[in-house]
């Protein structure tokens, strides 16, 4: 069974770096699941089946945390005792809050208007901003600037939420 005290990077035999080869993560993930997935133990005894379930669930949790760029950053910060999304930790740069407010207003304007074709364009802008911010986040993590990275994670979470809302709105339009 897998070692539950290991961090996610060690679990997959990867260096604890933000920038890595996603193909290496996929390959390690598949190799580990081949070893622990419940389907491999379906005809085993009860104890083995339970251990397989727990191990496989852990491997999935770890994979999902590392696969997602924001999740990976959040996880790296948590290894250093920083909870990027802690409720007490509400200070965000003023300029970001300003931009966020503008985005929400733009979204409301488009949504309440008759012509909703602007939603897709807005989504594109948000995605572009997120991509830029992700690059910044990567640089900060590589430079071990943890507090700056934490701010970037918080901003990115906001952007993800806006993008999700836009997607829901666009989907509603589609039918």
């Amino acid at each position, binding site marked *: 069974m897998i070692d539950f005290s290991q961090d996610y990077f060690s679990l997959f035999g990867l260096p604890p770096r933000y920038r890595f080869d996603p193909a290496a993560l996929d390959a*390690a993930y598949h190799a580990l699941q081949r070893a622990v997935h419940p*389907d491999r133990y379906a005809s085993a005894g009860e104890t083995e089946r339970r251990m397989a379930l727990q191990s496989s669930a852990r491997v999935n949790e770890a994979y999902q945390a590392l696969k997602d760029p924001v999740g990976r950053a959040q996880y790296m910060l948590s290894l250093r005792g920083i909870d990027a999304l802690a409720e007490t930790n509400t200070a965000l740069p003023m300029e970001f809050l300003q931009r966020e407010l503008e985005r929400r207003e733009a979204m409301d304007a488009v949504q309440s208007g008759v012509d909703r074709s602007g939603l897709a364009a807005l989504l594109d802008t948000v995605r572009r901003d997120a991509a830029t911010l992700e690059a910044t986040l990567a640089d900060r993590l590589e430079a071990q600037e943890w507090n700056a990275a934490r701010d970037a994670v918080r901003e990115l979470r906001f952007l993800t939420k806006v993008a999700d809302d836009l997607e829901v709105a666009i989907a509603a339009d589609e039918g």
Partner: protein
Amino acid sequence: MALLQIAEPDAAPAARPPRLAVGIDLGTTNSLVATVRHGIPVVLPDAEGRPLLPSIVHFGAHGVGVGYPAQDALVADPQNTIVSVKRLMGRGLADLSDARRFPYRFIDAPGMVKIETRAGVRTPVEVSAEILRSLRVRAEASLGGALAGAVVTVPAYFDDAQRQATKDAAGQAGLNVLRLLNEPTAAAIAYGLDNASEGIYAVYDLGGGTFDLSLLKLSRGVFEVLATAGDTALGGDDFDHRIYCWALETAGLGPVSPSDTRLLLLKAREAKENLTAHASTPLVATLSTGERLDLTLTAATFTTITATLVSKTLQPVRKALRDAKLAVEAIDGVVMVGGATRMPQIQKAVAQFFGMPPLTNLDPDQVVALGAAIQANVLAGNRAEDEDWLLLDVIPLSLGLETMGGLTEKIVPRNATIPITKAQEFTTFKDGQTAMAMHVVQGERERVSDCRSLARFELRGIPPMVAGAARIRVTFQIDADGLLAVSAREQTTGIEAAITVKPSYGLADTDIARMLEDSQAHAAADMAVRALTETQVEAQRILGATRSALDADGDLLDAPQKAEIDAAVSTVRERLAGTDRHALQAAVAALNRVTADFAARRMDRGVAGALTGRRVDLLARD
């Protein structure tokens, strides 16, 4: 099928016979049972050679009929002849937007409707169990022995209540469920292994009453579901219903009797099937009132009256692509599953959407059962030497908890790969609060009232603290069947509460007691025999597993450990020869106990092996 079984006479001197395992496609309209014979998946036909079992149960004056006999009673006795019961699984009356389309006498009950029949009140679970029992009997007669287990398929978009209801039905039918498998995933296994495919595939699965769309990545023997979407109340039935409505309107008829409704729906289905190969079809019927319908339905009219249904299937396609963050151009192939995909307008719409003709080289009626049989064979422990594929599936709908103000807090997002465990901390909102109500919901909407309620439970005995001081950790665990268990623990005191989201459809205790009585009456004579057989099958299974574990990794044990396991094995063997079920159960439990540490070390070795291979690979990369 390219599934070769390589027999190595030296490695397996006493080759044991394969364990009997089947895959079951429990469909809205038809059900099938399949198995793997000599490495090849085959559907098991009935005594008359018919592969399909109509999913119809008739509660007649002289007993219960399933399949074709039940179909014959459909028009004469519509209220006691249950069709499309799959649409009722895990559903309350309020969930059924189309309840009035069924001619049944429904009884509303918390969580799941019941049906009043001649034989008494029946739940959809009990009706489904009749169908499954019929398939089990067919399989056991055909294979000549008790089944070690079955893989039962469910629509990928089934929620927790619908899955649990299906698993319960299988249990009532005397089946050992090895796994609940998503239908499109089953089809992908059958299709992917048959064609040695690689790449990203869309499985478009339009059944009798459900629609699923799954996107899978097939690479080096791994079937990875990227996203799934669907509609559990959209299928071939709805196309029949459109024809039925068109026929009534065209003939200028008002509402007709349940019996005539059944007759016309059967005629509508025939017409639909005719239009697969013809440009027009007659629709002729004489109603019980003496009125006569003599209509002609053209393919063009059929396409027009069903256009909204066809486009309704494309919404989940778009949603799944969005969830997987894929453009339609990224899809390497589209697999068609379900009899309803034979309709030309469906084929055309799918080809147009994906910009390529869909793949139809496996029988769309059989492909799900065949895939389920392949997985059942592997799960039962009959994996061939060179058979090394792995399946990674997902949950279709987000799971969460109700928080203040009737809002949903998502704990596990949709399309998360299973099995998975996720935990989140909550706190009290009032000073001195000593209990916390947990309301588990499934769905994507923000308001709890728009999601499906799965279960409610309470964590009590929290010591009085100021608001926000208690730390309640709620853990969601989803197993490989996609079934949820929830537990809650107050971190500072260790107070715990847990629930397997089992009574989600609100079975009252009296129901359970009655169901047990019924099932006992059903098999009064062989009940005890069956229980013993089941224990023997389990004992054989653990003996087999222990033997192969010792063969592969016996070197992990020192002499005393090995002796302890050997002794426990001998006890199980001795008691297998007898008929004392409880003694055998105790011996199996003892063997499980003494092999626990060995099992953990074996898994360690597997994990270490997986990573060693990886490290070499990684070095080569750098």
